[in-house]
């Protein structure tokens, strides 16, 4: 390599010699994906706010116990799984492969627990007669807006899909990192995805659950 080429490689971002964001392409790609995904969730939440604001018969059916207590517990599970994911990324960068794999598996178990508990709540609601198309609530003497179920199951379902994909993603990363096929950067990028799923729940939990607490009960 000539001296000129060496100079270029050591140059500034504008010369094309250094990555402008001081990060690898995987990480930049994941950030850009998360940017677009956050718009998907934002528009879903805003659509929910739109139909809710313009509806006269929007039900507020959830009692503090069990619905809100249950959702708070789900939040606790997701936050704790984010903590184990941070530990996994830190261990991966210190090259402690065994420790990192254990932390990633703990994170995935948190994700599975979240999906199972959330599905149990879904089925409780189905049994009560709340579906994506209809519900049995009565608001001001009129039947509750059927869009309540549509937005509730739509938003939580989209989020649950992300958690499920995240669990599969984490299992693949744990397997690959344990067998040294992947490096610490792969673990870090999967961590970004997982924290994002956690972040989205920080908006769905208050908007869907806490804003639907029954004020009369």
């Amino acid at each position: 390599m000539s001296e000129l080429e060496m100079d270029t490689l050591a140059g500034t971002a504008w010369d094309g010699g250094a990555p402008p964001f001081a990060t690898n392409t995987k990480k930049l790609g994941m950030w850009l994906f998360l940017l677009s995904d956050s718009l998907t969730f934002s528009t879903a939440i805003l659509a929910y706010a739109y139909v809710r604001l313009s509806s006269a018969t929007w039900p507020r059916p959830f009692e503090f116990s069990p619905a809100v207590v249950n959702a708070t517990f789900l939040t606790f599970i997701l936050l704790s799984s984010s903590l184990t994911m941070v530990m996994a990324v830190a261990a991966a960068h210190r090259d402690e492969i065994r420790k990192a794999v254990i932390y990633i598996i703990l994170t995935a178990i948190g994700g599975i627990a979240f999906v199972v508990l959330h599905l149990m709540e879904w089925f409780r609601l189905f049994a009560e007669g709340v579906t994506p198309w209809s519900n049995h609530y009565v608001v001001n003497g009129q039947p509750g807006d059927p869009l309540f179920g549509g937005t509730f199951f739509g938003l939580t379902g989209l989020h649950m899909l992300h958690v499920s994909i995240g669990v599969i993603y984490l299992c693949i990363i744990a397997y690959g990192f344990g067998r040294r096929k992947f490096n610490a950067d792969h673990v870090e990028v999967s961590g970004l995805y997982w924290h994002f799923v956690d972040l989205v729940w920080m908006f769905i939990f208050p908007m869907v659950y806490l804003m639907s607490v029954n004020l009369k009960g």
Partner: protein
Amino acid sequence: MSAHGATAEATHQPGSKKLFMWVWFWLLILTGIETFLAYLKLEPHIMLTLLIGLSLIKAALIVAYFMHLRFEKIGLFLIIVPSLVFCLTMILIFVFPDSLRIAQLSGLGH
């Protein structure tokens, strides 16, 4: 974040176990406050304002510390956050007046 972003790339994996535990602890506290607000059954307007405020703080904590954005170069922050804020602002400007108009037409009177 601006002062920190430029100097932090020397340490590839910043943030200690203790720091992450603290962030996790505060996220739990904020969640607890949100749940307590639901227990109090406040007026919807006050409730919504408080919840969005608390959720934005929680989101900022997750993005800054768990997702390490605070320790990345400032350029990464600048391509992600302002564009997201801009898009959301545009959606809010175009969507909510219309939603409130429908409510007014149907005599809801929000």
